[in-house]
């Protein structure tokens, strides 16, 4: 690493990027090898050593305490005290430090805002400020853009450029090729724990992707134009609350037809999760109706909805999708275990379960030593294939796929996408929810953009990315609507950011 360089670390999930950086940050101990900082070997025994050596890290999952203020989070772990033995926390000094760093690097955050009230993009900025107040020379950003809107990502890249101009070095971990090309000075590709190549950002996307997976991959999805049929899923006037009794879905009308993929784009947390859970009978409806093939299903249990021909790939596979301690075979029948041929009466039929599992494993290319292995031992991509295999192994009318490729390697993404299109071509209606804009654009025949619990626009897949990106940020081309959204967006105005609510109104 050179001073003032942005070095991208590119690799599939499970390639060892995060592990490498955790070693650098002192969270894991290396078995062999050494780390050189300014020519001197460093053996960090914990994050404190790493920080002392001038290394800071922003984790993929933020390490912030949600109920504390920005200033309190920033001083956490390096609390300034005054009053000697009495040890009063010096909040004023922490606030001053935050303000100082904010202005120096043009990273605007309000030191008194409570973390949980802030949007994700700002929370990430707090993480960066936190690292910078420790006076680091090298900043590690572990998949920083995974949770950001295109606009927020753009802002982050600007921040990174400014840090670079100030002489800080940045290690930027990602598996998004576009960002690498936009910002990196040098690219190192890691595969299965080894460096497989170093490239300049001038290399083409396909070259980088091939380096990542070790073979050529198709990044676009080949598909014929859709031939939509009868409406399969009809939502009207849907209103749903989230776990905190806050309105999450606020009057959604939506129709998905047989043989088409309707993509719901939107930044996470705009009601997509609750919408899907309500359709699946996992969350109570406060108003509105859900119809499947003309019949109301909103009063049915989840089991009845699944049995009516709905396949569901939940967005968080480790929480909602799989029982990690159970075997692959058992997870493949998690919704069918009590139906022939897998169960009869009270008894399970282990032979039938095993036989079916072997077929599915072959058909869906699940890489595993055995069908009896616990599903938790598989890699993310293979776990996701198990879920997809389970949901696609029944005759379906409707497939709901929420974030079907999140945290999945490029090879598996390709496979899962082709399966979804295959299912569409067989006449199934597909509802795809994804915060990956590329995925929605690549797969969907129609794109509905969700913002603050509403569908604020339905556009075709050939709409410009920028336009969809603006919709995702709540800005509709219609000026009247924009004003209305600007007013609601004002609620998170506690965080003054260069393109906060204010700039939305300008647009």
């Amino acid at each position: 690493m050179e001073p003032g360089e942005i070095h991208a670390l590119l690799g599939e999930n499970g390639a060892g990027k995060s592990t490498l950086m955790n070693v650098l940050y002192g969270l894991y101990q290396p078995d062999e090898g050494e780390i050189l900082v300014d020519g001197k070997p460093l053996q960090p025994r914990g994050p404190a050593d790493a920080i002392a050596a001038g290394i800071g890290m922003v984790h993929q999952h933020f390490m912030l305490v949600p109920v504390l203020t920005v200033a309190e989070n920033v001083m956490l772990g390096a609390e300034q005290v005054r009053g000697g033995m009495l040890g009063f926390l010096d909040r004023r000094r922490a606030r001053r430090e935050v303000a100082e760093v904010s202005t120096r690097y043009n990273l605007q955050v309000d030191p008194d805002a409570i973390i949980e009230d802030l949007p994700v993009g700002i929370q990430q900025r707090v993480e960066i400020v936190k690292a910078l107040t420790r006076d680091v020379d090298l900043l590690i950003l572990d998949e920083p853009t995974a949770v950001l809107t295109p606009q927020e990502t753009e802002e982050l890249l600007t921040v990174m450029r400014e840090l670079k101009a100030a002489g800080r070095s940045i290690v930027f971990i990602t598996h998004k090729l576009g960002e690498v090309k936009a910002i990196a000075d040098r690219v190192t590709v890691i595969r299965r724990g080894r460096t497989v190549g170093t490239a300049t950002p001038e290399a083409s996307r396909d070259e980088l992707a091939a380096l990542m997976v070790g073979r050529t991959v198709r990044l676009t999805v080949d598909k014929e134009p859709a031939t939509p049929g009868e409406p399969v899923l009809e939502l009207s006037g849907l209103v749903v609350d989230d776990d905190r009794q806050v309105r999450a879905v606020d009057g959604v009308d939506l129709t998905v037809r047989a043989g088409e993929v309707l993509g719901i784009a939107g930044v996470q947390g705009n009601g997509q999760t609750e919408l899907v859970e309500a359709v699946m009978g996992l969350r109570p409806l406060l108003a509105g109706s859900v119809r499947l093939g003309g019949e109301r299903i909103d009063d049915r249990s989840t089991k009845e909805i699944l049995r009516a021909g709905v396949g569901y790939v939940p967005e968080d596979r480790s929480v909602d999708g799989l029982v990690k301690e159970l075997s692959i075979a058992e997870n493949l029948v998690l919704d069918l275990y009590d139906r022939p041929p897998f169960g009869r009466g009270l008894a399970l039929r282990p032979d039938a379960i095993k036989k079916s599992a072997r077929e599915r494993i072959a058909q869906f290319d699940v890489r595993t030593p055995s069908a009896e292995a616990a599903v938790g031992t598989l890699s993310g991509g293979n776990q996701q294939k198990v879920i997809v295999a389970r949901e696609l192994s029944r005759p379906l009318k409707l497939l709901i796929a929420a974030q079907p490729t999140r945290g999945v390697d490029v090879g598996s993404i390709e496979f899962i996408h082709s399966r979804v299109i295959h299912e569409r071509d067989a006449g199934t209606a597909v509802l795809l929810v994804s915060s990956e804009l590329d995925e929605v654009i690549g797969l969907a025949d129609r794109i509905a953009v969700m913002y603050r619990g509403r569908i604020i626009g339905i556009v075709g897949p050939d709409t410009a990315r920028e336009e969809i990106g603006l919709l995702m940020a709540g800005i509709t081309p219609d000026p009247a609507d924009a004003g209305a959204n600007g007013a609601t967006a004002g609620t998170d105005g506690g965080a003054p950011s260069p393109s906060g609510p204010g700039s939305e109104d300008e647009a």
Partner: protein
Amino acid sequence: MTNAESGSPDKEPATTDQAARMTLDNTERAEPASQQPPERPALGRLFVANLWAANTFTVTLLSLVLAMIVGGILMIVSDPDVLATYSYITARPADALNASWALVSEAYANLFKGAVFDPDAVGLTAALSPISETLTYTAPLVFTGLSVALAFRGGLFNIGAQGQATMGVIAAGLAGFLLPLPAGLHLLVAVFAGAVGGAVWGFIPGILKARTGAHEVINTIMLNYVAVYFLVWLITQNGVQDPNRTNAISRPVDASAQLPRLFGDDLRAHAGIILAVLATWAVAWLLNRSTLGFELRAVGSNPAASRTAGISVTRTYVLIMVFAGALAGLGGSQMVLGTTAAALTPLVVAQIGFDGILVALLGRVKPWGVLLAALLFGALQAGGNRMQSYSGVSLELVTVLQALIVIFIAAPALVKAIFQLRAARAARPQTSLAKGW
């Protein structure tokens, strides 16, 4: 998967047990064997390697050894005569060592003679007596152990086996002396009543957990108190209390409702142990081979994913607690229908519910493991009686031994560190024991 592990341990531990003892002695001998042609030593070496890897069986066995060592030290420290020899240990070390060895070896020999076999016994009855005692203590522990283990596999921590057993003993006892039924039928009704009594007491925390999210640990503990004091109150009521007695004891259970003895009238072993083996088999089948068990295991590991896949989590929680309660109730019913007591007293269930928690943990919350663990606890109990009367080592030491075994098992890292075991893949079940909270 768990199927593969717990599907056949009924025979597995028996053979491994013998084999383990052999190989433990032969560890040094196995080394030279590995230099011979590759095929046979490969097998033997694999076995030794596996044994010294920190698998659950090895850790359990070594925990037992460690507990006995600590127990031996406690015996020495608590015996004034032996302790006195240590005051001049530098002058005559042999005295101290001999006295210690004599005390500890005799105590453990008596423990063994009381629990398994006494070589000096004359006649069949005397020879069978230790086994009979062990089985008598084992039977109820199997039920309460299964109760805790079943709930645990379903993600619930059932501290209420004691209360459920108490309700079981009440229901079984009442059915045993209040209902005038013919022999045979009377026994069936009494046993069934015990199961129902426990099931009701399990249903309450189950439905509270499912409907309101109330934590089952709190509720089962509280219901333990309710059950115990209900028993104390009930015993002195008219029609329940023995009319010929003034102290708190109920009428005796009719002979027609008592579990038949297995080895004749002089030995206490009764049919409860047969029921216990059947129950173990039934729970193993339920867990691994039934749709309900599938739901239970899925909900126990990940309720969110189970719900998403259409499994009714609330229904499963209620069923788990009903089954767990019924098992504990069956265990309780043996305390009055069996040979340990024939009438209800305030202490009639002893500690079987709480011991059941230890048995379940020791048995790694697997049905056949629970059976073996209960057998060990039963043996310690039976042997402890003899150890107390013959060696003068107090019965409480047995409780200390039981506690030490469980502590060592709950801290596998400690055992591994002491014996320098290699880390093995099988280390997961132990960590999962902490999950209930």
